[in-house]
């Protein structure tokens, strides 16, 4: 029995998907040459005035609503003052006093147990520039700064210290990502830095209501690395506490390669950010209608979708896979509108469809096959027009060309032969050509019929309906 339990809270920064920056009209697109997407405002030149991007405010409200937060009565901004060379103005514009959203929550399931993680707040802030060094940081004589990223809108989502294990933290983060992807406010790519996570980790005696000294853990660049980093930090703190020591409150860096966390060299003394309201930004009062419209424009969120798909009789695994991607879930729903076999549909979507998408490195939205086309194909299978096996071949062609199932079937001549008159002729031919096998059957080797079915299929180049062939052959063999 462990003596200590971990108490974990996350601070997650997410880049908003606006086309322009938070306070200027510079593009946010990734991949431009250094300092190509800059202007007087995001460079902090003397005499500039910030121009608040209303779309970013809308996205922040959208994210806050998706996380079940209360929306601030007034959206305003504060200055967080500190000096660093990636910070053009010498202050970062953030929301210190009145975050956009507060008191939200995320529901999730960890190892079969329902958990509700409270969201303390979500607030907007501007991103800083990026330092570029030649070679290693410490060995580089100079730093260069690329300000393309400076001023890109971020939201920071801060949880309450409700997480109790590294695994929970990872699952929370994945759930958060799904929710934000559903809301359409960010692409949440941890590897590219459009989603970044810091973790506050502390330990306390099991059953205690107190909080121990916490460390802030940084540099975790994937979901896996978040879990691993926190695991290592928990172990480290456990060892200290078991030996009767004290955890030093500090910022620690996760070293992915060496699998350990280490204290970061403190660059400056304890920061005093001197936060005060930015006098150049006029507060926005989000009127109720606007917020209501944003709320209405949110799609059905993952939890509600999960409940609905479960209600259709889908197993939990299928529900999880389908709802993990909003586009995939939308595809499922659209197909489901005209094809009612929920499980067959999920098999096809999770199987063939996802396989082909992955093979082509494509997103659902890039698919040429529509949900309606898939539904039509499955109906043709059910009606016996083609076999399940041919259907896969047909679907591949549909996926490649975007053509309807019927067109592909006609082109390829794949229509299944269910006409018993036609099949009886072929069956007679096969029976006549294989007297030895017929004899085996007569002698009780009922499995021999399989060979004969195969011969019929071969004769028809696979277009015969195997169930019908089976029935015809059985009747003929039993009667001769």
């Amino acid at each position, binding site marked *: 029995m462990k003596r200590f339990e971990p108490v974990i809270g996350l601070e997650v920064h997410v880049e908003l998907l606006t086309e322009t920056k938070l306070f200027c009209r510079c593009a946010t697109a990734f991949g431009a040459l250094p300092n190509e997407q800059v202007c*007087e405002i995001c*460079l*902090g*030149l*003397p*005499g*500039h*005035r*910030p*121009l*608040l991007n209303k779309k970013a405010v809308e996205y922040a409200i959208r994210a806050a609503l998706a996380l079940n937060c209360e929306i601030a009565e007034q959206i305003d901004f504060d*200055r967080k*003052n500190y*000096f*660093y*060379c990636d910070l*053009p*103005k*010498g*202050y970062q514009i953030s929301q210190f006093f009145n975050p956009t959203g507060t008191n939200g929550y995320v529901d999730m399931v960890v190892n079969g147990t329902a958990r509700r993680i409270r969201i303390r707040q979500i607030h907007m802030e501007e991103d800083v520039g990026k330092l570029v060094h030649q070679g290693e940081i410490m060995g580089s004589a100079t*730093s260069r*700064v690329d300000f393309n990223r400076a001023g890109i809108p971020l939201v920071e989502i801060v949880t309450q210290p409700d997480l109790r294990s590294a695994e929970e933290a990872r699952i929370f983060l994945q759930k958060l990502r799904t929710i934000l992807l559903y809301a359409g406010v960010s692409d949440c790519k941890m590897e590219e830095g459009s989603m970044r996570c810091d973790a506050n980790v502390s330990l306390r005696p099991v059953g205690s209501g107190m909080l121990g000294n916490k460390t802030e853990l940084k540099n975790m660049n994937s979901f896996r690395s978040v879990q691993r980093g926190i695991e290592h930090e928990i172990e480290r703190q456990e060892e200290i506490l078991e030996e009767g020591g004290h955890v030093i409150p500090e910022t620690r860096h996760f070293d992915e390669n060496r699998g350990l966390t280490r204290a970061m060299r403190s*660059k*400056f003394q304890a920061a*005093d*950010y*001197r936060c*005060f309201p930015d*006098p*150049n*930004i*006029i507060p926005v009062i989000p009127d109720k209608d606007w917020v209501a419209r944003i709320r209405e424009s949110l799609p059905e969120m993952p939890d509600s979708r999960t409940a609905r798909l479960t209600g259709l009789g889908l197993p939990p695994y299928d529900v999880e896979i389908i709802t993990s991607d909003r586009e995939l879930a939308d595809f499922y729903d659209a197909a489901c509108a005209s094809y009612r076999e929920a499980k067959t549909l999920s098999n096809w979507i999770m199987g063939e469809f996802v396989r082909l998408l992955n093979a082509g490195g494509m997103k659902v939205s890039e698919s040429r096959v529509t949900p309606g086309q898939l539904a039509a194909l499955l109906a043709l299978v059910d009606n016996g027009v083609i076999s399940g096996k041919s259907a896969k071949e047909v679907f591949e062609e549909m996926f490649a060309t975007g053509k309807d199932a019927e067109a592909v079937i006609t082109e390829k001549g794949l229509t299944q032969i269910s006409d018993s008159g036609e099949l009886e002729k072929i069956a007679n031919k096969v029976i006549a050509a294989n007297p030895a096998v017929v004899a085996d059957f007569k002698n009780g080797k009922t499995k021999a019929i399989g060979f004969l079915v195969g011969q019929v299929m071969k004769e028809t180049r696979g277009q015969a309906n195997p169930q019908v062939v089976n029935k015809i052959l059985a009747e003929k063999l039993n009667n001769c």
Partner: protein
Amino acid sequence: MTRDNLTVKELFCLYNRGAVTREELKVKVPEILEVIDNRYHAFISRATDFDPGVPPAYPCVAADNICTESLNTTCGSEMLLDYRSPFTASALDKARSSGFFLLGKTNLDEFGIGDCTGRSFFKTTFNPLSQDHLAGSGAAAVVAVGGAVAGFASDARGGLRQSASFCGLTGLKPTYGRVSRRGLIEYASSLDQVGVITAGVDDATFALRCISGPDSKDPASQESPPDQDSTASGFRVAVPEGWDRVSGLSAGVKSVFNKTLSLLAELKVEAAEVPFSYLPLVSITAAIIGATEAFSNLANYDGVRFGKRMSGDHLQDMYVKTRTAFFGRRVKEFLTFGAFVSSGGNYREYFLWAQQNRGAIQRRLMAILKDYDFLLLPTLPFTAPTLAESSGLVNGADVYTALANLAGLPAVTVPAGFDGRLPVGVQLIGRPFAEAALLKAAKLLEEQGGREVVAP
């Protein structure tokens, strides 16, 4: 009058009437500016091309904390010694499209911080009315000698009005938001406003019209509501009580102000003292808010992207050396004060306290302006200081002027008399966006006050 004695303003006037050729203007104007600069140390940079284009053209200057593409913008600081802004302030763009022609950039307290002494890293500007005394700003000195029709400058705690008063001029600080501040390198964003110094009220009225209006690049700028002139059938003036108990109020200023009150009585203008307990808090409140914002606004002068840089052993060392070397003493004192009053431990006691004062002052002023059309106050407690006197005067100069900045209200100073050789201004503060009425009343004071003015 021989043409040799003409001022720049008069030359442009003749040019606009076709009485002076473009060639003559191009030769004479720079010569006169050279003389003005040599005598009063008014300019930081002067235009190189004096072709004003198609008439009418109105000569103007701009304080060197207003950005221009055509000339450097130094803020009077070594930090920005060679700084050229990639854009021109919106107010100057507007002025240009109304026919204003920029002659040069004028001297100012470094970054505008310094309480109207008119001292920068480069020079100290002297007062054309009395060369032993300071002008408060280069713009005021140039306008005072007819070197320009208008001097565009900033007014954060009253500097613009103070220097206008020192030089016997009209100084107008518009309502916050009436004029775009994009391109103004302000130190105190919530207080600062672009305004204008002119020889008289009419010029100020004209200049204001040219620079007013919304600007898509300054979200705080607004379309001015239609002027509602409440003063058609006379107006009422409130004088905040305690005006005469302000420390440092000189006998000369007091006497000119009292004469203005008698003058209003003669004109049957009701001028009543109203209860007002905040005068002792004005300077300190404006200083705390101004310094907090300045500490943040001037943080971009870090040697990284523009301006001067000292090399250092590491990043923090570079910051310290750069800012230590290239900011002047007064700026560093003010920034240190700002860092102190906004630091975590002092935020409540100082910054929040000042914000509360500001709110209370705003509410009280608006309440007074419900019953009265204007507030009337001296512009400063004293007249233009000498260089020696100025070092002790840094606090309290803004006791009357900063009220308008704290409340975002329009205010205008006009000369009302003299104390010896030095002019004394009085100040009217009006309702938000009621500049038309304000300037009309100022015009009345100007005309009537003229009787008292004895030219030195």
